């Protein structure tokens, strides 16, 4: 094991992803789900940066990571706006309670 290599980063990223996914699937609070999504996005960023560091491809990975961060910020803004809208409509942000689109 010795030096920290690509494998560590990938495992870290996988753990982050799994935690995020678990958070998304299990949280009933809409804000919790948004937080889980942030974790998933960040696991992707870790992968980008790690692969960019170990593969000689210039700064493409870092640039993509910055894009993802920017996108996450936008996504968070929209997501929070939706949550606010949901709260106004349902007076709750429990996603199990907001099932009006059930078929």
């Amino acid at each position, binding site marked *: 094991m010795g030096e920290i290599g690509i494998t560590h980063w990938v495992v870290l990223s996988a753990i982050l992803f799994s935690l995020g996914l678990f958070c998304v*699937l299990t949280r009933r609070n809409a804000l919790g789900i948004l937080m889980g999504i942030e974790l998933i996005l960040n696991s992707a960023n870790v992968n980008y940066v790690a692969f960019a560091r170990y593969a000689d491809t210039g700064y493409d990975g870092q640039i993509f990571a910055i894009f993802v961060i920017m996108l996450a910020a936008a996504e968070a803004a929209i997501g929070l706006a939706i949550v606010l809208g949901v709260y106004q409509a349902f007076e709750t942000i429990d*996603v*199990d309670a907001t*099932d009006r*689109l059930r*078929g």
Partner: protein
Amino acid sequence: MTPHLAPTAAPWVALIPLLPLAGAAGLALGGARLQQRFGKGAVGWLACGTVGASFALSVAAVATLLGLAPDDRLLVADLWAWIHVGGLQVDVAYGVDPLSAVMILVVTGIGGLIHVYATGYMHDDDGFWRFFAYLNLFTFAMLTLVLADNLLLLFLGWEGVGFCSWGLIGFWHKELANTTAGNKAFIVNRIGDFGFVLGIFLLFWTFDAAGIPTLAFREMEPRADILNQARLWGVPVATLATLLLFVGATGKSAQIPLYVWLPDAMAGPTPVSALIHAATMVTAGVYMIGRLHWLFALAPVTLHVIAVVGAATALVAATIALAQNDIKKVLAYSTVSQLGYMVLAMGVGAWGAGIFHLLTHAFFKACLFLAAGSVIHAMGGEQDMRRMGGLWGKLPHTSRTFLIATLAIAGAPFLAGFFSKDEILWQAFSSRHGHVLLWLIGTTVAGLTAFYMFRQVFLVFFGECRADEHTRHHLHESPAVMTAPLWILAAGSVLTGYLGVPHALGGPLGVAHVMNDWLAPVFGGYRPVAGAGQPHGGELALELGLMLASVAVAAGGVLLAWLMYGNRTLAPERFSEALGGAPYRLVLNKYWVDEAYDLVFVRGTLAVCRAAAWVDTRVIDAVVDGSATVVRGAAAIGRLIDDWVVDGAVNAVADVTWAVGRRARRIQTGAITSYLYVVLLGVLGGVFLWWSWASAG
């Protein structure tokens, strides 16, 4: 008309028929206004003026004819081309020959007197102008008939008098019986006209087949042989055509079997009866036979039929007249009987005698009708002779003229009827086509005529007055405008006879038979019928004997009438109740001919109509209804297909879609978490598939 004569162009003779036409047109269009503004006198003057002018022109035409050589006596007015089709050329052309001349004098002369009389008779009628419009039109039609130069124009007049008679008989149209009588006259005449038209067709067809398409008398007569040679179904065309034409004559001249219209035609005003039944319409058939005598002479079979029909009609009508109580009905049947005489004369080939009797009959029958009209006028409309009597002193002019005319029709010696009737009887006896039985019937009818006419005279003018107090109080002689024509006609009833003094009487005295000489260019000059001419010396005694016999029979009839109705020593019941009263009831009810016709033809027609209506409603309507039902059935089936197949398919698609949707919507839980699980499973499944594929590869 002889074949070699040279006609003289005389366009003015066309005015003879056209003046009454102008009068009719003027009265029809402006008569009501004329009557309103200038009174009935103006209407009367106009109507009588046109006919009077025609009479003057007719006299002028006769004078012109007299100025020509006998064989050249023909005036022609060819007005305009009427029908020119292919080879056929029919012109509106009038021709005056001696035969037509006699007829136009009768029509305009006696017709004119009747016009004058009618101005008095119809004076209180609101339809005064309409009546005279019809009278003028009638005169025009009759003049067209007798002046026509071809068969088609003759037929136009023939139909014209039929139409006008319909209008005049039904003139008082507010009573159903009158219009029914008018319809009857018209319909019965139409039956005859049908035969007449067929006869014309046959003549034209035959001439056309021979390459001479013509209907003009002058062109047909010289070529009569064509008709004699041509045959249709093995019968000479001449026989067939004359029989068909004679059917027309039985309609117009009221012969068996079509005489039934004439007695009913008494429904019209009395001047109409006089005009139609004395001077004009009924003589049309006799005139037509005379006009086509060259054709009838070719068909001995037809002549026999005509003679028998004429004699039978004379006898039957005379017997019916014996028992009638209506003053006009007696005269009506008398007319039918006298027409039988004329037709009998035509049937034995005695053309001249028939026309001569037509002339004398026109005078005395017009006189009788108008006098009867005067009686009815005086009696306030009463027509039943049983409620008359004793009018001799009260109606001096009417009664005397009536008696003169009665003597004339009864055949009293040296009056008109005596000469003309005895000429017919003599011809019936002596002609090649004659027979002693025809003479016997004719003489019997002479006796019957004398009886029923004098029965009428005694019932109306002598004995007790049987009218009620009111009528008796109002009895009055008619005005001069009515009695003057009566006296003129009465004078004619005496004097016209001397135009035809029989050879047996006139010969020794040097008196010529004016009628025979006058008509000779028409009847005598060409194709004479043997025996129709002058009797020969040896037969003189025979003719005188027959004459005495008929006079004796007539005197017997008068005597019987005197005994029964004059001094009443012989009760009429002795005859009416003879043989259980059966013969009396038979003639009183006119042999039930009307009833028989009603039963056979009228009801038969109605039955056929009803059967046709039944077929219509039950068969044709059923077929139509059936086809409609079939269509409705087919439509119902189509609807089922629509409902169950077409709609079913559409609905099935919808139902399937709906059912699938109902099940598929369960996927939409609305719970975001479950969607995420699905996404996760999808991704994992995809990865797994990819991984197994990659490892397998």
